Each structure stands twice: as structure tokens, then as C-alpha cells.
């Protein structure tokens, strides 16, 4: 076959969110790739300017479902820095616990998705089954499985009880056991290795040049981790290793993620052991004094960046969000080179893309007074009936027929 252009997306089974990749193929080999982003823009940056800080916090938390805590913490750090709030240490520890639990849940989720993309659904089912343990823990600690809503300006909304901390340790033991098993599977199952190694090669120099972040960069031996380089919340008190790998491919990215899982369990044990007593929140002013702050956060997918500019009112002047996937997407085209069509899903999945994070801005609907026409159930019903009537369906005859049948 001559060169063929294959659309992967905006709607495609391999993509869980709409985004468009157009791939030019020669036979099964990829020649080039073209990305069109922006299908998921919701206008969050602009909308943040129209909301007070409390409202904006919940909006920012919903930039992404998987790394919701990352975005809300990153945003709140910036706001707290501008306001000059000293967040109590216990609150910082609780934020860190939730952050690491989120990383565990995100990486296990990724492991399952990776399995699915290469047709290994069993891995998906098992990884997601085990992930339920983290989800349940998160639900117990914060109230909800996603969009935890634990943060508030000046601290956290809910304290963690000693029983919950003990339960946390037990969960960690179970998960550590399971992760060890997955490491074993990843290093021994031949079909898995065949599908992952050598795929999506990203050389160290390219990773640096194209600004890759997070596990994607670390799998290309870029030793960069915001938790260590620019410690925030409670990370400066923790002893952990930044996992890097020299495979430079999807297999390396898998090893980095499972390696990070093992570090997460350790970190949570340290956090539980060290958590100080005290209040979990300080009183925050409604109006934040003028100023600006730049905040970085190591989300499960990589470096998340928020810039907040305050102007002295209760609303932010400007909120800028750069999610990790946008930084990583630059390198995807490079990774695609000389790979097969069959590798496209796993290469895209290997950066753990989160397109809803990436795109934030398109149509602003004032939440208070939506101008969009919403059809009520009744109106929809009427519309459907009208449509069918126009198609020549006679409801009277149908109803008569139906009632005749019912009588018989």
C-alpha cells in the first residue's frame, strides 16, 4: 500500500478522551504524525478569573479527574504563597499522603490501560482490581473516590484519624505485594516484553530538548523530579529515590512507573510515622493581597505548573495552568518515528496522556446563567414525536393497534 493517512481520534477506542492524531503510514510503518489538540478545552483559565479563590479551587481541581489533587494543591500553594499563609505541618503531611495515594492510583490505572492498549486485558482487570484498594482508601480519607476536595486555602478540610493511618499501612502492605508481582510479570512475560521494549524510543538528548517531564523523561535517563529538586508540601522531610531508567522506550516507562509505586509505599510509611500533631488549617483571608507566585508540583504524569497573579480582590487576576501532558506531547511525534501502526496506542498511552488537563479553554459558559439551550425531557420527547410524525409514522394507528393487542 502506498502512503495512507489514518485518523486516530478525535474518537477512537485507544483514546479515552478526544484528541486527534493523524498518522501517515507506509504499509504498517509510521512515516509521520500530525497532532491536533484542543478538543477538550473548557475555558478554565478564563473562568478562574471570574470566581473567588474558593470557587476557583474547586474548578482547578476539575482540570483533570485523575490528578485532581495535583492541580488543586499546585494552585493552592501559589495562593498561599501570595497570601503569606503558614500552612500547619499536619496539613502539609495530609496533603502529601493524598498526593502519594493519588500517584499510586494513577500509576496502577496506567498499568491497566497499558495492558489494554497492547491487548492484554487480563493485566487491565487485575491492575484495576488492585487499584480499588487505593480508591477505597482515598474515599475513606477524603470522602470521594475522585475530586477529593481535601484542600482548602490554608490547610486541609479533613483530618486523618489514627485508625485510618493504621489502615493505610495495611493497604500499603497489600499493594506492595501486588506491585512486586507486577514487576515480576513485567520482567518475565514474553509477549509483554515483546510489545513494550524498543517501542517509542526517545533518546536522552531528545527528551531534554523536547522538554519531556515526569516518568516519560525519567525513562530516558533525565534525572528530574520536582519532589526532590523543588520540594513542596512535606517532601523535604522524606527520604526517597528518584527512579530513572535507561531503556528510553515504553518498557522503561513501565519500569519507572512500577518503581515509583514501590517508592510511594515507602513514602507513605514514612509519612504515617512522622505525621505531627496539631491543627490542620489556618484561617485564610477571603481577599488575597496583590502579588504573584509560580508553583510547581510533580503530578503522576510529570511536572505540573501553576502561575497565579492576585490583585487584592477575592478573585484572581490571572491563573495559568500547564499540565504535564502538554509538555510530553511534544515528544510523541519523535517517539512515533519508525514504529508500527500497532504501536501507536501504547506509545500515546505511555506518556499517560490526560487531554482534559492539557486543554483547558474554549467556550466560556457562565455557570450562573447558561445561555446554551437545554432541552428538557418533555421538550426532547415532543421533538422526537414531531420528528417521527414527519417520517410518516402515525401514532394514532399505532396506539390503536397496541390497545387492540393488549385486549387480546
Amino acid at each position, binding site marked *: 500500500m502506498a502512503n495512507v493517512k489514518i485518523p486516530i481520534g478525535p474518537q477512537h477506542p485507544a483514546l479515552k478522551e478526544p484528541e486527534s492524531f493523524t498518522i501517515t503510514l507506509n504499509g504498517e510503518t509510521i512515516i509521520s504524525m500530525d497532532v491536533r489538540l484542543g478538543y477538550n478545552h473548557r475555558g478554565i483559565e478564563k473562568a478562574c478569573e471570574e*470566581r*473567588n479563590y*474558593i*470557587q*476557583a*479551587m*474547586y*474548578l482547578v481541581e*476539575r482540570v483533570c479527574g485523575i490528578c485532581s489533587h495535583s492541580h488543586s494543591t499546585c494552585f493552592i500553594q501559589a495562593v498561599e504563597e501570595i497570601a503569606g499563609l503558614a500552612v500547619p505541618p499536619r496539613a502539609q503531611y495530609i496533603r502529601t499522603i493524598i498526593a502519594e495515594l493519588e500517584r499510586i492510583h494513577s500509576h496502577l490505572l496506567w498499568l491497566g490501560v497499558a495492558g489494554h492498549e497492547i491487548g492484554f486485558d*487480563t*493485566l487491565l482487570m*487485575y491492575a484495576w*482490581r488492585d487499584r*480499588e484498594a487505593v480508591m*477505597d482508601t482515598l*474515599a*475513606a*480519607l*477524603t*470522602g*470521594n473516590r475522585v*475530586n477529593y*476536595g481535601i484542600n*482548602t486555602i490554608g490547610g486541609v*478540610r*479533613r483530618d486523618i484519624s489514627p485508625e485510618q493511618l493504621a489502615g493505610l499501612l495495611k493497604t500499603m502492605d497489600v499493594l506492595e505485594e501486588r506491585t512486586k*508481582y507486577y514487576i*515480576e*510479570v513485567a*520482567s*518475565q*512475560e*514474553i*509477549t509483554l*516484553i515483546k510489545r513494550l521494549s524498543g517501542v517509542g524510543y526517545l533518546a536522552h538528548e531528545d527528551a531534554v530538548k523536547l522538554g519531556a517531564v515526569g516518568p516519560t523523561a525519567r525513562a530516558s535517563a533525565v534525572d528530574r523530579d520536582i519532589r526532590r529538586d523543588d520540594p513542596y508540601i512535606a517532601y523535604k522531610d522524606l527520604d526517597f529515590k528518584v527512579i530513572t531508567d535507561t531503556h528510553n522506550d515504553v518498557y522503561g516507562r513501565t519500569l519507572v512507573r512500577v518503581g515509583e509505586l514501590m517508592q510511594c509505599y515507602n513514602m507513605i510509611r514514612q509519612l504515617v510515622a512522622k505525621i505531627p500533631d496539631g491543627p490542620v488549617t489556618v484561617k485564610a483571608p477571603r481577599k488575597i493581597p496583590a502579588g504573584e507566585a509560580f508553583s510547581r508540583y510533580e503530578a503522576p504524569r510529570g511536572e505540573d505548573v501553576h502561575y497565579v497573579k492576585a490583585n487584592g480582590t477575592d478573585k484572581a487576576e490571572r491563573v495559568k495552568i500547564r499540565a504535564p501532558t502538554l509538555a510530553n506531547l511534544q515528544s510523541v511525534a519523535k517517539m512515533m518515528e519508525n514504529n508500527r501502526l500497532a504501536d501507536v496506542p501504547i506509545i500515546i498511552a505511555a506518556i499517560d496522556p490526560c487531554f482534559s488537563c492539557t486543554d483547558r479553554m474554549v467556550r466560556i459558559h457562565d*455557570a*450562573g446563567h447558561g445561555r446554551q439551550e*437545554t432541552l*428538557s*425531557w*418533555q421538550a426532547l*420527547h415532543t421533538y422526537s*414525536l414531531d420528528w417521527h410524525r414527519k417520517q410518516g409514522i402515525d*401514532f394514532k394507528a*399505532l*396506539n390503536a393497534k397496541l390497545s387492540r393487542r393488549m385486549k387480546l
Partner: protein
Amino acid sequence: MIHPGKMAREVLTSLFRKPATVLYPYVKVQMPDRFRGKIKFTSPLCIGCKLCMRDCPTNCITITKVGDKQFQAEFDLDRCIYCAQCVDTCPKKALEATAEYELAQLQHDKLKVIFHAEPTPASSPAAPAEHAPQSQPAIGA
């Protein structure tokens, strides 16, 4: 080391294990204590400060004064994101998060929940505390 079918033993033992699937909706899930479900409004406690309205990220709460020191609350559940910020904001604990989570509706208007003010002892006690307007579309109407 290479091992084809590495997961074989694991999957075979699964045959004799209970499935991990929760058979929802036949089996209901127990919500944690801190779960943030549908918000409940207790009218007598409300002082009408409207702080909840100001902090609600989606403007889904409307508190209206219906009488002397009497307030009714209207929730647009289709807008509510169940963050329970209003519960934290309320200075008088007039709002609380319940464990109710099965809130999906086919009819848009059922998502509007009104918590009427408690009737004063003098008036009729028949008014329901919670009320959602109902309307059923007729088939083929």
C-alpha cells in the same frame, strides 16, 4: 528470565476465588462516613447569611427569605458538584452532606430540590419538608 504465560497460575487460582465485581445495583455500596452526597438543608438553623451561595463553585444554591427568620433553599442538583464547600462554609450547620448518591434522573425538573421552610406551629403541618415537582410525559402524546 523469560516466562510465557506468566500470569497463568494467578488466573487459574481466580477460578476458585470470589469475583471482585460488585453486583451493583443488586448489591449497594456502603459509602464512607465522610462521603459527600446530596446536601440536606435544615431550615430552622438557617440565619440567611447566604455565605453558602457566595462560596458555591457552581452557584447551585438559592436561599430565599420566605417569612420572618424563615428561609427556604433551592438546590440545582444538575449543577451541584458535591464538593460540600457549603457545609464547611455554613456558620450554623444548617447544611449537611448525606450519603445519598443515586441521584440520576431522566427528567430535568426532578433535579431541582426545594427545602421548604418549616411551617410555623400555627399553620398546617401538612407541607412536606422536601419537595420535587413531578411530571410524567405520556407516551405518544
